[in-house]
């Protein structure tokens, strides 16, 4: 194997302030509460900035600002709203490199991914929904669909800016105003987005960003003047939100956890499948709700496939997220690393066999090597619980019916992969899998025109596409 010289992306392009306030009504304001959190670079444990923890009173201020802005924004002709959203999309493209570096620094994901996947998709989402703003009467929800009001949005740390785009772009296009809370470990790109709103001259209060942790998010979703709750994150928190909005008539969409099956049949193109499996579980360190974390491989090709997979894993490079050669970056936080370790240890304790490629681990920061478990039973915790890390559990099957049975044997239902060269088998499988997205002979593909969302305990509602508008319209 060839040695690569390090090719780090420069940090000079970005400017991180030592501390940030809250973005309310188009202004940076100091929080009323005393709380502060530090956001760190997970690859080095260096403190990047201090962020405010918004209290209930801060959340209230933000919601009030959004409520006031709603009258202006919802009354504006769609064609004018569209132009603001198009502006935002363009500014994101202009500042894409800066945002990618910031995202990789704060989140730990490889710059190759933030630059080539996250940022292009972020801009694409704003472009896509900008175009809907003056065409809502064609969206299939009746001749004059109306916005809901103020949207309270809580997003996770795995795709900070992409999740922001998924939430804010359709909300604004439909005429709603928003209060968004980014994750406490990855607030920096959302705070940079606040600046983008100012550059776009977006009317004050249309977008408000409040930082903080779970309590801030709880205050936001419970706020009586929030008409719409949108959440992406864990199933456990999703359950709490569903409970807390009971009886309130808030419209809710939840994008929660997953434990996707990536199913490989014996007639699949195996080299392609190996790439798909790697992309499915090791993309973004496995911090992906739709990650293909359970590999179901037909028994007849299991040996051959695993050998090829291990060979491929040995070529993955783990290390500095800002290095353009890096495939696997840092785990986002110490807490997440602890969870991945706990579940992996449980896998070993329950009798599965663990394998990782020889892989140097940096001294500082939060790291976990790509890991495969073989000999996994359906009852093992590593086959049932979402690990949210670079850990793949391998199970085998003999017949398509058994593959369906095993794939659906989970409370989740977000995504699935099917690898076969036979079209009729692919469609047979796709129709039986209880999952919102089925990737056939590919995995982890996203596009703003394509609805995304889960069955069962993976949550409700769809984001993206024409279907994604429904969450922000009174239909």
């Amino acid at each position: 194997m060839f040695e690569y010289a390090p090719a780090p992306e420069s940090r000079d392009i970005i400017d991180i302030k030592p501390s940030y306030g809250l973005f309310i009504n188009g202004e940076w304001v100091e929080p009323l509460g005393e709380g502060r959190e530090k956001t760190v670079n997970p690859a080095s444990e260096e403190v990047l900035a201090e962020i405010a923890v918004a209290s209930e009173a801060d959340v209230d201020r933000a919601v009030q600002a959004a409520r006031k802005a709603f009258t202006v924004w919802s009354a504006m002709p769609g064609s004018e709203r569209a132009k603001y959203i198009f502006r935002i999309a363009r500014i994101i493209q202009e500042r894409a490199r800066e945002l990618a570096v910031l995202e990789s620094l704060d989140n730990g994901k490889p710059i190759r991914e933030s630059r080539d996947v996250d940022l292009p998709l972020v801009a694409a989402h704003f472009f896509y929904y900008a175009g809907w703003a003056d065409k809502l009467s064609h969206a299939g929800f009746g001749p004059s669909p109306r916005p809901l009001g103020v949207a309270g949005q809580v997003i996770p740390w795995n795709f900070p800016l992409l999740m922001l785009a998924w939430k804010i772009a359709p909300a604004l296009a439909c005429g709603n105003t928003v209060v968004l809370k980014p994750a406490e470990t990855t607030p920096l790109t959302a705070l940079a987005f606040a600046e983008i709103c100012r550059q776009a001259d977006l009317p004050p209060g249309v977008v408000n960003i409040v930082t903080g942790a779970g309590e801030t998010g709880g205050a936001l979703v419970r706020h009586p003047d929030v008409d719409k709750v949108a959440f992406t994150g864990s199933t456990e928190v999703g359950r709490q939100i569903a409970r807390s909005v009971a009886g309130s008539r808030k419209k809710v969409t939840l994008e929660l956890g997953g434990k996707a099956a990536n199913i490989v049949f014996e007639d699949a193109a195996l080299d392609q499948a190996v790439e798909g499996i790697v992309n499915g579980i090791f993309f973004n360190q496995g911090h992906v709700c739709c990650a293909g974390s359970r590999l179901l491989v037909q028994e007849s090709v299991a040996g051959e496939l695993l050998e090829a997979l291990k060979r491929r894993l040995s070529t993955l490079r783990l290390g500095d997220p800002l290095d353009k050669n890096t495939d696997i970056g840092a785990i986002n936080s110490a807490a997440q690393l602890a969870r991945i370790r706990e579940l992996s240890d449980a896998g070993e304790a329950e009798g599965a066999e663990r394998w990782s490629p020889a892989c140097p681990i940096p001294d500082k920061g939060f790291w976990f090597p790509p890991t495969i478990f073989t000999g996994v039973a359906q009852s093992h915790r590593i086959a049932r619980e979402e690990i949210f890390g670079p850990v793949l559990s391998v199970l085998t099957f003999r017949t398509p019916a058994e593959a369906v049975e095993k794939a659906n044997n989970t409370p989740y239902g977000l995504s699935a992969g099917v690898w076969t060269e036979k079209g009729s088998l692919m469609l047979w499988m796709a129709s039986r899998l209880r999952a919102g997205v089925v990737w056939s002979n590919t995995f982890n593909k996203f596009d703003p025109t394509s609805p995304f969302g889960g069955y069962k305990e993976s949550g409700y509602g769809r984001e993206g596409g024409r279907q994604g508008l429904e969450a922000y319209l009174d239909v």
Partner: protein
Amino acid sequence: MSERVGVRKTYKLFIGGAFPRSESGRSYVVSSSKGEFLANASKASRKDAREAVATARKAFPGWSAATAYNRGQILYRVAEMLEGRRSQFVTELVDADGVGVRRAGELVDAAVDRLVWYAGWSDKIGTIRGSANPVAGPYFNLSSTEPTGVVAVVAPEADPLLGLISVIAPVIVTGNTCVVVASERAPLPSITLAEVLATSDLPGGVVNILTGSAAEIAPWLAGHMDVNAIDLTGAELELAVSCEQAAAENLKRVLRPAPGKADWITDPGTGRMTAFLETKTVWHPIGI
């Protein structure tokens, strides 16, 4: 010569296409709007609800896999059977709901028409709700609708026939199966409707109807881990809130009761169907 003694009807539950009594052996008195004894209705228990969910689950694979064409015809067949029993339902509505004969006739007609309307949706809702997605890149990408699974339905207290049809039809026309808690005050038309369903080619278990106390049965259905969705239309606010909280446990899809009394005569729109539909998106690369 003595006067002829009428043959009274025994009203039972409707589970899996059969008419069992409640396993609990309980029944309750159903009175007319004037307070006269009409019949004893079965008072379903938690165990009856559990049995009904198991039955609905068993019926789901077959019903959801039936073609939309087939499901539409079966709903139309239900309308046919209902039309044939028009006068029976008119009498029952007059007795149970205290409406006049003419109003009762209008309500039965509206119920028949509502079924016919939904029958026509079976093979169209997927076209309206699905999409071909023009993604950037060499992929073929389609979104199609699928039923969510077993739906628990708390039927409205008022409008014991039209309201009931209006909550059942959208759930089953889209391929879901259901367990329905009938109007507690006026449960008799629901069991007569079950007789219609039982003789209309609808597979056993697709619709299961429980009579009894919504406050007693609905929380078990809301907390049941094998129920995928719940329609709380007929639940009082307090019951609806506790059911919504219980439904959070397995993240059921919840249709919340709208404030105020529902108007079942107006165009229902597609909302009741889409509330219990999932969207599945399938990606495949394009290439040679």
